[in-house]
């Protein structure tokens, strides 16, 4: 920052601030204050859910309507942050169920947006794998029910690549051969986190020195990166134009059947372990319906069907046991214990640290 130099600048600042304060008499209001009282004006025969793309399909919604008589309307978001922004801008009052990821559950709970769950109303929480019984982001599942999980890793074309990637390091070592033929996720925390992890630091490092090192490492790779994208890599890796893409395991599992040469690995040095959950916001107009949805999604048969049809991994042991062997042994969907041990979940970071990440990200994507 260029502050603390000019008295004229300070003068200007003060003058402008005064001018603004006097012209805009509305100052002192709270930006994006979120309503935490139930929204009762919404139709109670309908359950509005706010979820990720690919988490529901017509069959699933129809089945729920059959079982409960409630109509379901599913809207989708493409990132936790845009979901939160919509909630904060007051545009999410109709939803009784939202699907935030781990770190966002923690953030939303800290902001006081979430309704504490009544565990006596939920059937199936105790059947979760132990790692989901008491998650770091939401101890004892006070606010959230895990619904899907996975890792972040690399999908690659085994026919076109000479060596098999084992770690993030591969991208740097083979920069020349794969130049402009690989993509990274369009997500600051995932990309910087993977690099931090490769350098031996935590995915959630808040040390500016570590973050700078990760940026410098990435900057040396930048000219070879085709693009930062969370979705657009799919058609291109299927046809073989891309050799490698950084992606979420659920997305990899979804597209791997389309090209038999595609493989997915969870990097040796570690990966981010993500969990998507179900939460009920305080503003939920239909909390009974929300509990019905939770119980519906936790039914082992439903959960198992969803794994087969929409290919995302279930955290429920009962549902896991109902799966055919081929799916249970699929390392993309259900990574082995050794991989999970090396992985970390993304944790919320303070605004100040977030600024540091964002600044490096802007630099990286505009080099």
């Amino acid at each position: 920052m260029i502050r603390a130099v000019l008295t004229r600048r300070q003068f200007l600042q003060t003058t402008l601030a005064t001018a603004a304060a006097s012209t805009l008499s509305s100052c002192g209001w709270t930006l994006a204050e979120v309503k935490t009282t139930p929204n009762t004006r919404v139709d109670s025969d309908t359950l509005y859910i706010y979820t990720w793309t690919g988490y529901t399909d017509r069959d699933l919604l129809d089945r729920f309507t059959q079982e409960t008589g409630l109509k379901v309307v599913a809207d989708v978001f493409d990132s936790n942050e845009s979901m939160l922004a919509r909630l904060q801008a007051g545009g999410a009052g109709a939803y009784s169920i939202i699907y935030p990821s781990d770190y966002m559950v923690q953030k939303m709970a800290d902001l006081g947006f979430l309704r504490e769950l009544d565990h006596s109303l939920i059937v199936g929480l105790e059947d979760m794998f132990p790692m989901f019984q008491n998650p770091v982001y939401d101890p004892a599942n006070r606010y959230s029910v895990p619904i899907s999980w996975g890792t972040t890793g690399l999908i690659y074309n085994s026919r076109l690549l000479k060596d098999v990637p084992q770690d993030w390091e591969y991208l740097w070592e083979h920069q020349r051969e794969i130049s402009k033929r690989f993509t990274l996720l369009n997500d600051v925390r995932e990309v910087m986190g993977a690099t931090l992890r490769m350098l031996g630091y935590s995915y959630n490092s808040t040390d500016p020195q570590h973050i700078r090192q990760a940026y410098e490492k990435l900057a040396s790779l930048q000219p070879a990166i085709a693009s930062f994208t969370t979705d657009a890599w799919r058609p291109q890796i299927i046809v073989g134009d891309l050799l490698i893409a950084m992606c979420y395991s659920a997305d990899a599992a979804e597209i791997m059947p389309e090209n038999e040469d595609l493989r997915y690995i969870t990097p040796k040095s570690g990966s981010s372990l993500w969990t998507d959950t179900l939460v009920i916001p305080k503003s939920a107009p239909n909390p009974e319906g929300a509990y019905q949805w939770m119980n519906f999604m936790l039914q082992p048969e439903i959960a198992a069907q969803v794994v087969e049809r929409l290919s995302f991994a279930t955290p429920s042991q009962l549902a896991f046991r109902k799966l055919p062997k081929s799916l249970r042994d699929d390392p993309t969907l259900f990574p082995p214990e050794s991989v999970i041990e090396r992985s970390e979940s993304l944790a919320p970071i303070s605004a100040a640290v977030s600024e540091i990440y964002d600044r490096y990200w802007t630099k990286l994507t505009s080099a």
Partner: protein
Amino acid sequence: MAVSSKNPSNLPHPTPKTGLKQKAGDLLGPLVLLGPAGLWLLLLLVLPTLVIFELSLVENIRPGDVVIPDGIANYLRVFDPINLQVIGRSLFYALGTTVFCLILGFPVAYWIAINAPSRWRNLLLLGFVLPLWTSSLLRTYAWITILRPTGVLNSFLGFLGLPALELLNRTPAVLIGMAYSYLPYIVTVLYAALEKLDRRLLEASADLGAKPTETFWKVTVPQSRAGIAAGSLLVFISALGDFVDPELLGGASSMTVSRLIYNQFLGATQNWGFGSALSMVLIMGVSIAIALLLKYGDGRPSK
């Protein structure tokens, strides 16, 4: 505003033409005609812009914070070299797109307006605007399919025995995609300008011995100057706000100012203050461009 208050009989509602009532009618006319749009603009453009302005004066404000304007720190941050570089790239994309659109769009508009049989004109124009009926995202994805290394374009070049082109994830792809997106706009505007071209002047110019290029530069261009200015500005402004094309086609170095603003509001940092300051700078830039158009791009061709 095209409303003439001296001419109440032209207004679309019955207005008595006598005395006081006429005066009331004189007032009522513009009010009825402009009121709804005016209210719309006030509520959905002027007020939100004022809120953005207020937020831009609060350093690093995030949702949940109390809004107390405290200075221009957010604006000073806009001039950080990193952010200037991003703004520079946006300007480059927008200018490049405008130039491409003008070069590609002018001949088309000229041909439709001057040479095409008059009964075909509307149909031809419609055909040109037709792509706008599909989602812009879809059209951008189509360009990925065309430009990718083994895509439609390179298959075709290979078929002709020509070397493959590496266009995707580089600047040329962005300019191609954006020029394609905004071409219909400039063609429509240029068509409207060229259609009014006084053809007798073209004939006179030819009769008096001017070469076609001279006629073009000295007669056609000056007469359609207003259309060229309006069309270019329309493309420039729309292109300046585009981040879908640069992001999907431009590869790893495609951060634009609109994406930077998006990141401040919908990204992890949630710095709505800085985002608002960037938005205000963008709004100011566009306003200046429009002011220039109003001053220099008026309908009268210079003689």
